[in-house]
C-alpha cells in the first residue's frame, strides 16, 4: 500500500491494479510526440524545481511588470481589488475565524506561483509573459509578502532557497482516522436522538432583511422563480437592439460576429443594460465618445491626457487601439495584447456601435 492513499482499495485489489504487463502490446494508435511538442506543452513545475526555465527577474522589475499586468485585479501592492484574489497579507490568520489565504500566508511552495503565473495568467491574456518576467513577478509577490528584500533577484539558481512561511502547514488527508471512525453505523441513532430541537440559524436572517425575513423571503420565492420566464422572453431582445442604432453604415451581421469576438473582452468589460465598471470600464456608448468617457473609472494617465486633448473613439482610433493597445496608450491598464485579425477588429467595432446609445 502506498504511503498516501488511505484505504482506497484492499491490498490485493491494489496489487492487481498496479500489475501492468512490462510491455503492453497496445493498439498502435496515436503517434510519437515530438520533442518540440513536448517542450511547448510540458510547462508544469514541481516543488523540487523540476521544469523551472533558466532565467531571473528582480523585485524592482517585478513591481513595474506587476503594475502593468496584474495590479488591475490584484492591486498595486498585491492586496487584491474587489473579489479578485489577494496575493499578499494574512500572515498568522490561518487559525482565525476568517483566515486570509495569500501566497505569503498560505501557499506552501514557491513553484506553484511560478507555474501558475506562467501558464494561467494574466487572466484573459494567459501565456504572454516571458520567463524572466515571470521570475520578476514572482519576486515582487514575495516582496509584497515581506519574504524578500527590495533588492532581491529571483532565478532558477536560488529558487529553492526561498522559504515559504506556511511550507509545513499541510497534512495529508486524515479523514480515515479522524472522521471515518466516528461517522459510523454503530454511532447512528434512530430514536430519541435528542431531547428537543430548536432552529438556531435561518437562511433568510443572514439575508438582507433580518426581521420577519422568513415569511417575506418565502413569499417572494415564487416571484424569483418566475423571473427566468422573463429571461426567456428577453431572448428576442438582441434582434431588437440593433434597430435602436441610427447609423447608416451599421451592419447587423457584422455586429453579431463582433459580439462573439467580444467574449474575449468580457473578462473585463460589461455592455448592455445594467452594465457596471469591472476590471475595465463599461463600454456602452464608447463608439464616438471621448477617450476615457466613463465617470468613476480610474483610467491610466495616458488616457486621461487624451481625454483632455479631445481624442475620440472613432472607427480609426478604435481600430488602432484594438490592434495593439499598448502601442497607442503605453500606460493603458488594459492587459489585453490586441486582436490579431482585421476582420475581428472590424466586427468588434461594429458590435460596440450596437451598444452605443
Amino acid at each position: 500500500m502506498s504511503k498516501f492513499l488511505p484505504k482506497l482499495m484492499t491490498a490485493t485489489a491494489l496489487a492487481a491494479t498496479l500489475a501492468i504487463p512490462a510491455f503492453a502490446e497496445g493498439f498502435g494508435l496515436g503517434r510519437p510526440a515530438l520533442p518540440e511538442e513536448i517542450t511547448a506543452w510540458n510547462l508544469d513545475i514541481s516543488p523540487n524545481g523540476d521544469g523551472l526555465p533558466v532565467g531571473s527577474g528582480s523585485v524592482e522589475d517585478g513591481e513595474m511588470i506587476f503594475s502593468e499586468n496584474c495590479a488591475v485585479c490584484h492591486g498595486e501592492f498585491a492586496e487584491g481589488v474587489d473579489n479578485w484574489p489577494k496575493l499578499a497579507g494574512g500572515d498568522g490568520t490561518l487559525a482565525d475565524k476568517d483566515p486570509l489565504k495569500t501566497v505569503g500566508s498560505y501557499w506552501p511552495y514557491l513553484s506553484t506561483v511560478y507555474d501558475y503565473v506562467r501558464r494561467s495568467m494574466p487572466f484573459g491574456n494567459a501565456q504572454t509573459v516571458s520567463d524572466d518576467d515571470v521570475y520578476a513577478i514572482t519576486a515582487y509577490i514575495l516582496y509584497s509578502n515581506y519574504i524578500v528584500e527590495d533588492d532581491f533577484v529571483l532565478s532558477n539558481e536560488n529558487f529553492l532557497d526561498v522559504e515559504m512561511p506556511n511550507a509545513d502547514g499541510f497534512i495529508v488527508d486524515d479523514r480515515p482516522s479522524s472522521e471515518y471512525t466516528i461517522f459510523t453505523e454503530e454511532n447512528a441513532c434512530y430514536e430519541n436522538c435528542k431531547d428537543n430541537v430548536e432552529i438556531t440559524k435561518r437562511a433568510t436572517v443572514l439575508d438582507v432583511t433580518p426581521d420577519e425575513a422568513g415569511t417575506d423571503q418565502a413569499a417572494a420565492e415564487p416571484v424569483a422563480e418566475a423571473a427566468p420566464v422573463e429571461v426567456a422572453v428577453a431572448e428576442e431582445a438582441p434582434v431588437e437592439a440593433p434597430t435602436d442604432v441610427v447609423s447608416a453604415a451599421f451592419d447587423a451581421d457584422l455586429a453579431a460576429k463582433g459580439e462573439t469576438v467580444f467574449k474575449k473582452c468580457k473578462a473585463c468589460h460589461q455592455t448592455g443594460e445594467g452594465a457596471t465598471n469591472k476590471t475595465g470600464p463599461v463600454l456602452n456608448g464608447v463608439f464616438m465618445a471621448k477617450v476615457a468617457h466613463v465617470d468613476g473609472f480610474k483610467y491610466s494617465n495616458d488616457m486621461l491626457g487624451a481625454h483632455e486633448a479631445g481624442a475620440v473613439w472613432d472607427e480609426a482610433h478604435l481600430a488602432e487601439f484594438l490592434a495593439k493597445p499598448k502601442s497607442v496608450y503605453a500606460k493603458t491598464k488594459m492587459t489585453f495584447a490586441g486582436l490579431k485579425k482585421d476582420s475581428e477588429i472590424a466586427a468588434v467595432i461594429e458590435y460596440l456601435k450596437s451598444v452605443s446609445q
Partner: protein
Amino acid sequence: MSDTQKDISPSRRAFLRGAAATGVGLAAGSAAAQGTPDPLITEKQDWAMTTGAGVDETPYGLPIKYEGDVIRRNVPWLTADPISSINFTPIHALDGTITPQGCAFERHHSGAIELKKEDYRLMINGLVDQPLVFTYADLERFPRENRTFFLECAANTGMEWAGAQLNGAQFTHGMIHNMEYSGVSLRTLLEEAGLSAAGDLSDKWVYVEGADASSNGRSIPMEKALDDVMVAFKANGEALRMEHGYPVRLVVPGWEGNMWVKWLRRIEVTAQAVEGREETSKYTDTLADGTSRKWTWVMDAKSVVTSPSPQSPIAHGTGPLVITGLVWSGRGAITGVDVSKDGGKTWEKARLAKPGEKMALTRFYLDTDWDGSEMLLQSRAHDDTGYVQPTKAQLREVRGENSVYHNNCIQTWHVKANGEAENVEVSS
C-alpha cells in the same frame, strides 16, 4: 382526507404543483373540489382541435417553454467575475438520477472554450516508454466503456459552513450532476504509451491538464489513474457540452469535480505531485488550528431532500406527500437513506428508487401522509463502507469552522404549515 385524495393521479398532482409554482394558484383545483365541472374537460381545448408542431420545427429540442424556470442559476456575489465562476444545477426541479446536460452545473476558471474535434490533441508524456499524441479520431478507436458517475464540486454546500445561508437546494447542493459517460479508460491510454519507464508505480502520479487559458491541472495518484478514471467524450449518449469540456474530459469517479479536467490536453506521468494552484492554494481544507488538509480528493457520503425544499414548496395541502431527494457517496454505493421530519430526533428509512450504484447518484423517496404540521426535514446517507453522513455539528467538532470544501453535513429544511420551506440550522 386520504379517501378523497386516492383518485388524484400523479399527473394531476404535478399539475397542481406546477400551477402553484407559477403563481396561477389553486383555482382549478378548488373548482373541481366544489363539484363544478372542469372546463378543461367539458370545453373543447385548442390543442385538441388544431394541429401542433411538425417534425421539422425543432431539429434539436429544448424543454417546453412551461419548464423555462428549470435552469442553472448563478450566485453573483460568490465570485469576482462570471467567467471564472460557478452556477448551480436546478436539483429541486429534477427527478430520477441522470442530470440533463443542458442544466448540469458549470464551473470554469477561464470561461468555456470552443474547441473543435479536428483541433483536438491529447498528449501523454513524462515517465512513459513512448510519449504519444492522439487525435480525437484516435481516441474513438480504443475499446470503449459506458459508466454513470456523479461529479460534485468540492465547494458544494461550502457556503453553509458558517450557518444557513442560501435559501434553496439548487444553491446549497446544486454543484453536482450525474451522467452516463462513454469513453476510454485512462489505463488503456497509459498502457498504450507504456509504463515500464515509470518503474515502481505505487508512488507515481499522473498530472492532467486542460487546454483552456486557465490550464487547470491536477495530480492524481497512479493507483486511482489505473483503477477507474475515464477519458470521456460522450455524456448521456451525446457529445459533451462545451461547458463540460467538449470534446474530451476526464472522469475521476467519486473524487472532487476540479480533478475532472475539461478540454483534456495532456497526461503526464510524474514521480511527484505537481502541487499546482488548484491542489495547494485551493481545494485544501483548513482546520481549527490553522493546519490544512491536502489531497482530500474523495467526496464523502451525502444526501439532500430536493422536494419539498425552499424552491419547491408543498402546494397541495395535507394528505399524500412525496418527499424525495438525492444521495451519493464517492467511496462506494449507497445502501440506505434515513429521513427525519423532526430535526433529527427520530429517523425513518426512506425507499431507494433503485439499488445504489458505486459513485453515482441514487434517488430516494419517502411516501408520506402529511398532516399539515411543521417539519424539520433532514436526510442521512449510508454507504457500503459503513459510513453515515454526519451533522454539521459533528463536522465542526473535527474540522472547526474555517473549512470551505467537503461540507457533506446533514441539511435541514424548515417546512411550514403553509407548505413553504426555509434553509435552517438546528440545535444538536
